[in-house]
């Protein structure tokens, strides 16, 4: 069995009395792309800083390819590249000089691929960093990280500041990393990005891992979204087994269903259904389900639109 790219056991970090991360158990297999979601302050960046050895854990431990993140940080860093969300670079160096420096310090760089990435991200490397926009500074760090072709890419909101075209270039580059067998740990607020790129998704809430799995697994655990349009007045479906939420708006009813849809179908039989659309929840809906008021636990709500309910 191969060594996981990332392994965390009971990883915790406190800042004074505030718990930034509590008991994180996590394993990321080699070649996998793991998306990490959570609102501000959920513990995503703390997790990354602990994995990089920039912060010391209060409890637990973490490994990168079997190397202890604290005691063997330098060896671990030989196998990874990191892109932070906030690019802070030396303003007096040009883009080309910065890329050269970061490549030499990293110890390896695919110069041809670096040139390709410079073209792909439309970066002018002759400009000094102080003349770059935020997005261009972010591109420098992305190019530096990707062109090292590391075994592990740790990306903390890497596309903040990039325009939609560059976002596409980023997705293409991550796909190439996947094809090359590289592992990616991607922390992002852009749910469509995570949905498009990641094999598995981890969701953090208040410093705790509340959910991890593939999107398919998470969808099975989450509500099915069902929209029904009736020919006449809709029946009361709030009490049907499995229905956790029902929002009525005239002849239309929006339902969320956990588990089997059999009881709902039985309840709908002979009620004058004109249209029925069901779909799996999007990642955004899954995410909001975990961060809506009241937490992750689904609650049965039956409200009428315009009455101030809804999410």
């Amino acid at each position: 069995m191969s060594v996981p790219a990332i392994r965390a056991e009971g990883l915790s970090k406190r800042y004074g009395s505030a718990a930034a991360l509590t008991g994180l158990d996590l394993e990321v297999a080699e070649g996998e792309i793991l998306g990490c979601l959570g609102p501000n302050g959920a513990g995503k960046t703390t997790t990354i800083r602990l994995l990089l050895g920039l912060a010391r854990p209060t409890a637990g431990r973490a490994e990168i390819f079997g190397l202890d993140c604290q005691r063997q940080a330098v060896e671990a860093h030989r196998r990874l590249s990191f892109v932070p969300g906030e690019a802070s670079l030396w303003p007096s160096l040009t883009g080309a000089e910065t890329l050269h420096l970061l490549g030499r310090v990293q110890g390896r760089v695919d110069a041809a691929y670096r040139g390709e990435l410079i073209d792909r991200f439309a970066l002018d490397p002759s400009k000094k960093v102080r003349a770059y926009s935020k997005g261009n500074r972010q591109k420098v760090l992305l190019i530096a990280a990707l062109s090292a072709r590391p075994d592990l890419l740790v990306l903390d909101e890497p596309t903040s500041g990039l325009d939609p075209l560059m976002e596409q270039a980023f997705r293409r580059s991550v796909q190439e990393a996947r094809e090359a067998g590289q592992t990616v740990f991607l922390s992002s607020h852009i749910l469509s990005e995570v949905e498009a790129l990641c094999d598995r998704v981890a969701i953090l809430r208040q410093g705790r891992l509340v959910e991890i799995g593939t999107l398919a697994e998470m969808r099975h655990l989450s509500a099915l979204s069902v929209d029904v349009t009736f020919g006449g007045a809709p029946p009361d479906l709030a009490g049907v087994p499995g229905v956790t939420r029902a929002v009525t708006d005239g002849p239309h009813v929006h339902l969320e269903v956990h588990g089997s849809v059999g009881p709902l179908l039985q309840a709908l039989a002979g009620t004058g259904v004109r249209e029925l659309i069901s779909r799996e929840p999007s990642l955004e809906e899954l995410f909001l389900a975990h961060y809506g008021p009241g937490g992750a636990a689904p609650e049965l709500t039956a409200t009428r639109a315009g009455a101030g309910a809804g999410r």
Partner: protein
Amino acid sequence: MTGLLAPGPGRDLSLAGRAPGLVIARLVFLRAARSGAAWGLVFGLFIILQTLGYTSAYKTPASRAGLERAYGNNAGLNALLGQARDIGTIAGWASWRFVGILGVLGALWGLLTSTRLLRGEEDAGRYDLLLAGQTTRRRAAAQAVAGLGAGLLALFIVTAAGTIVAGLPASAGFTIGQCLYFSVTLVASAAVFLAIGALASQLASTRRAAAAVTGAIFAIAFALRMAADSDQHLHWLVWLSPLGWVEESRPLTSPDPAALLPVLLLAAIVIAMTLRLAGSRDLGAAAIRGRDVSRPHLTLLGSAAGLAVRLMRPAAIVWLLTTAGFALLLGSIAQSSAADVTGSREIQQAISRLGGHGSVAAAYLGLTFLTLSSLIALAAAGQVGAIRAEEASGHLENLLVRPVSRTSWLAGRLALSAVLLITAGVAAGLAAWAGAAGQHSGLRLGSLAAAGLNTVPPGLFLLGLGALMLGAWPRRASAAVYGYLAWSFLTEFAGGIIHTSHWLLDTSVFFQLVPAPATSPDWQSAAILTGLGLFGSVLGAILLARRDEHAA
């Protein structure tokens, strides 16, 4: 939590009634006033301790006449501190010594403060936020200048308090009016260089460049004042330097307020130019445009240590040249200083008190090399600040997420800083020898090189103290090192004259220094200071490896 920020009933959101247009002035004032008050405290303590020292050491007319004979016509000291007039009286002595030393320090405070709070804040992007409010670029600059002015007022108030405490007692016998006028003179050079720093902040594209421009103007002003005071035939040069105008105001002996008019006029013109430029340029841009596009120069960009060399190189070269130039000047006037005081019993006594046994030229260099040691220690404190800035700005993180250990990074930075300090010390010794050799002073190359090296251990000790602080309390590292440097400076320059506890004097890092080349360097003390610095560095590196990395 949000409740804490919510306005109460009937309250508006405009900073609780504070005019939103004054936010910039208030922000700049708070920071300039804090720094001005801290420097004013050092100025005030210096004035009090030095005045006490003078009145207790020179009680009789005979002893004061002796002092005047010894130092009154010394070309070397005149060049260094300004023309000594009536130093047999406390008024003359205070005018000479305080204006000579504190005037220069005030100018340095002015240039550092204005470039930090104007161009430095603009570099950091914080002005973007402020200018998005209800103001214009010109009004924002006017507010910032007003804030700097209020900071200058803080420097004046605390300095004046020290002057009044020292000057009112019968032993000194100054009136309140004299004390206040004297304090105005002491901060006049600070006002000029605050204004010049503000103008340079509009002209240059980075804070570093703005500080370099202002520093160069200061160096020229100082050199003109030195030349004017070293030779009577060149005395007219004093009117070409703002530092000369301040000297000519002679606040306590023969007050000439007209000499301060050029100071006011220059400051007013420079501020008007500042406001005009601030209103006509883009935010973040410079009136003198730097090159934002260039071909890659990859020299030294192969490692973290190479990067550090490259980043510190311009400032290091300027600083080494300044130190060496200063030492060259000291060497070239050492012989004439010796001629001025040959046979002076007071000077001979001063040399023997310091343990010296060499020629008077060597004694002069021994005493002035203590000043050189302060400059080198100041550079050490600057290096600690630069190392912390690497971490606070987030630049260091780019290296530490790659195969670079914190310990090796810190060791590399400290080693480079130590090399810079040692080079500066040796270069100063060699430059002083070159200056002295031209005057046939008979001082040997080896002895002056050793004397130059002798000025370095206090800087190495401060570097170690800084490293320890970087490992333990990084956000306090700069303040701790500059604070200890100020303490050492005060204790050395004031405590030496007042007969105070040896334990207290021992807390000054400069007190451990012998005045080479007047006497042979005390290599044992030097080794102890260097060893303590090394110990602090090792401990700092261990602590750094065991703590979280901290951005600002």
